[in-house]
């Protein structure tokens, strides 16, 4: 398979897709105060991908190639399974227990989608690690974001009232940070040489692209907001050692941050923004001898400036 780059743009409405666990669940802010942008870690995106594959390729799928190693699994006693037990469970379900005793690495590579794509640190004896060919960067919002603090009530009391009428008779108050709307851009690279070691195939790559899109749609919870994939760009290279680099800097969202500031507002829906892919596509055209293929998936509601039609792919 080819080396490639991915640019994934998604939006979130009415929720915070990645909280800051140490600071009272406000959004994670890597940028300084005057910048105002918030960020999502690669971990949350990988979780979306894994959860989608678990749901889509139930129990490893028909080929038994798409198990997921990193997941929350509970045993009969209600306890979370550790790394070793998870790996053994996968080995058992593909009938490779014997092989696993000597060579868990091959078993997991052959049967786990996330091991082949994202890599693994297997710290159970015999230990091994594998660098994943797919490496995501941080996703940063394309505009300054301000979170809102909201409160509401739960009608259901936490305990029943007893006969004397004592106990909790009222519901409780919930409080949460939320953000009305934000658009995030996340870059990723796929390294063909690392893929040779991990056994990642073109089929895995296609499943990953699908999982990025549908996994984002698949993951909906009030706290995390309504998430929507908007644009997915995949640029494959002929040269395994070449890449354009920083594709997120080659796209722009209009109006830009300064314009929003001048208007005293922030974008509140997809209708408010237009994405400009002109510079990215110009670079793609300029470097075409290095590029094997460029594909773009678009949400129908996204407004784009620049000619993207030749690259647009049907959605899953």
């Amino acid at each position: 398979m080819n080396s490639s780059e991915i640019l994934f743009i998604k939006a979130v409405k009415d929720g915070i897709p990645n909280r800051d666990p140490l600071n009272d669940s406000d959004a994670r802010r890597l940028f300084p105060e005057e910048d105002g942008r918030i960020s999502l870690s690669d971990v949350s995106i990988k979780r979306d991908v894994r959860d989608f594959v678990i749901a889509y390729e139930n129990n490893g799928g028909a080929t038994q190639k798409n198990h997921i190693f990193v997941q929350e699994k509970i045993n009969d006693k209600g306890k979370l399974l550790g790394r070793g037990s998870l790996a053994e469970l996968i080995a058992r379900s593909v009938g490779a227990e014997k092989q696993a005793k000597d060579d868990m690495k091959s078993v997991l590579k052959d049967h786990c989608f996330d091991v082949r794509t994202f890599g693994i640190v297997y710290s159970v004896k015999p230990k091994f690690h594998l660098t994943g060919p797919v490496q995501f960067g941080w996703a940063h919002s394309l505009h300054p974001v301000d979170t809102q603090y909201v409160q509401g009530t739960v009608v259901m009391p936490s305990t029943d009232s007893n006969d004397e009428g004592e106990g909790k008779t009222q519901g409780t108050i919930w409080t949460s940070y939320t953000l009305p709307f934000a658009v995030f851009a996340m870059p990723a690279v796929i390294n063909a040489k690392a893929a040779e070691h991990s056994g990642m195939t073109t089929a895995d790559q296609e499943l990953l692209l699908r999982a990025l899109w549908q996994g984002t749609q698949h993951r909906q919870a009030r706290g995390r907001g309504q998430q929507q994939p908007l644009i997915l760009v995949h640029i494959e290279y002929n040269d395994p050692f070449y890449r354009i680099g920083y594709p997120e800097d080659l796209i722009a969202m209009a109006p830009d941050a300064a314009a929003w500031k001048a208007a005293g507002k922030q974008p509140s829906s997809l209708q408010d923004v237009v994405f400009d892919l002109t510079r990215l596509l110009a670079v793609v055209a300029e470097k075409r001898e290095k590029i094997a293929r460029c594909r773009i998936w678009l949400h129908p509601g996204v407004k784009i400036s620049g000619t993207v039609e030749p690259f647009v792919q049907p959605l899953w």
Partner: protein
Amino acid sequence: MIQLLAESIIRIGRPIKDGGMPCREKIRLLTDVSSENCKNFFRHVFLIELAGGDSCLQQLELGDMALENNKETFTVDSQRNVTFPIFYPNGGNPLHAQGIYPLPCYLLYDPHLKALGEKEQFKKEFLSPRLNNTLQYRDMTLSEKELLADQVAVLLAAQATEFISEDKQLGILMIYDARLNVFQEKQDWMGEDETLMWINESRLQPGRQLYLDGEEVLQCINQAKFYEAAELGSEKNAVSTFSNQPAAEVVSIYNKAWLWLSPTWDMPRSIYWQDDEWTKGIKVDAESYAAYFYGVQFLKEIQVPVASAVLKEMFAPVTSVEAKKNMKATSFESIYGIPLVLPLTDGGSQQLFANYRRMLKKDSEKQSNSDLHLKVLAGIDRVVPEIGDEHRLTILYYSGDLSRGNMHIRAVIEDIVPSVAGKIEQILHDLKVSETGKIQLAFGVAEQAVYKTQTLPALLANAFGPGYVWETLQAALHKEPLRLERLRLTTARRLNELANKEDTWQMVQELIFYYSFLYFLHQYEQKILQKQGGVMILSDWDEFKALYSQGRLDLCHLASVEQLGFTAGLLLRQFHNSYYQKTGKDFVKQRVMKFGSKLTPAMIWKNGLLRCEELAQQWNMKLGANFRPVLAQALLGFLAKQDQLVPEKDSFMTAFWSGYLLYKADKKNDKTEEDGGNDNEQQ
């Protein structure tokens, strides 16, 4: 990061180790004798005396029972407890032998005491594992240890059982083995000797006194801890990571017996190392390790939780008054703060030691003006004694349970220059002592303490919001510029919320905070950044107000959106007063704000100021002579600044509410004007 932290800890520990601290105090610092968890162990101290072939047992109680709040509590004899250097286990099963014991002095838990009568079982489960792990018996053969265990077990089974009751009991077992050099026997009473610590009178040789040699004990403790660290790796003849010198033996710095850097998870370790190969990461020589141990114990002693009231100020939402009000002080996870003071160059360790000692004494009051009170600067109740700029202060914040190795570092604010910290403390002090009162007076409210402005973390968090607490704290303590945009945004949001609720009192409180912060910023820029000009503080508006009341405010005075907003506030309030006199209604509420909406600069301009003249005619209102000239200038100002009104609305709105709530009719001026209506300007 870990190596830097460890290095800092070693540098802190070295002067304490090498300083002139009496060995009693050192033992107290290194062991758990003064721990609250351990006090009941001192109720049953079993002292076994072995000399030659003889043996005997004494039982001691080191302390008194006292009645406190109708509850009997045991108070340990704080002088004598150091004679029994015990270590309280952190995690693991305390019934089993843990770590390496520097000398034969062991904790007895209830099941151990109850098993004293079963001598074989007690020997197997309690004595043998402990004797095998005792430093002082390291060179003894197995059969010798076996013999010793037998002798002790027989003695305890025969006599100690009479002290055992049905209740839950805890105790200490010390084997005074005359062969060991930590123990000394003297004919005479040695009094309060610096190094010799009195255990008790000998029962084998009545009249003679048994002593513990403090220096020996300290050496044993250091050595025992060094061997404990070796459990996760040791190497012979290797170069120490810290001294960069070859050492006969180096060990891993990680150890489960340690609260700091305890590897309860494998993170710092490569998956390719064996369990006992942690020295591939960091190697530490015996001397550095001892200093590290002193440093760790010292930091454990001086760490303080950030007060929950300060935490609330730091982490409650700042853009909503209501939300903040509903936050409980208890709804925030505890955060601990630890100050680390380090010299830029090594040396001067005696002075450093004196400082550390003062920090250990836990003074909460400043002794001199040069002391730094970290409660004000960092929210932690510790005084750092006077240190010069040849030192640097680092403040470490963490949350989680250290004893489980579950430590989340929230922030490490490194390299704070003491004189900068001192100046900031002085600014905050001036703000508290003199400036807040003046601001309150200007707004016509009674002088009282404002909690939000009393500590630097609270001040910054209320201005910038919880997401920026650490960042702005670091910026302030590092002499970096602070910005105003978020302060204006958060203040404008809160004022808007309160204006909708017509909560004028609370609005005034918000503005008091706002101007307190501006005063802080103004002083910070002048005294620390050496920057002139900058922000406008409350007193800067005095001249402005004087010009206003004389009707002499010109377009040239309205150079910024802030000045325009302030003028608009003064104008609308003056007009409101007259309007109220005539109609009995609130002008801003009735005419300027639309139902349910938030007040904006455009509303103030178009629904408010532009309509003043028309309404004044309609109601035949008497307005102060200053009003119309200033109104005309302000309206021109609005035209000139209309493009800035939206992007700078927060700045405009905070200034507007300031002008509105600061306005006072100037009667002296009004009287001189022909159509002056001073009487109509009272609500």
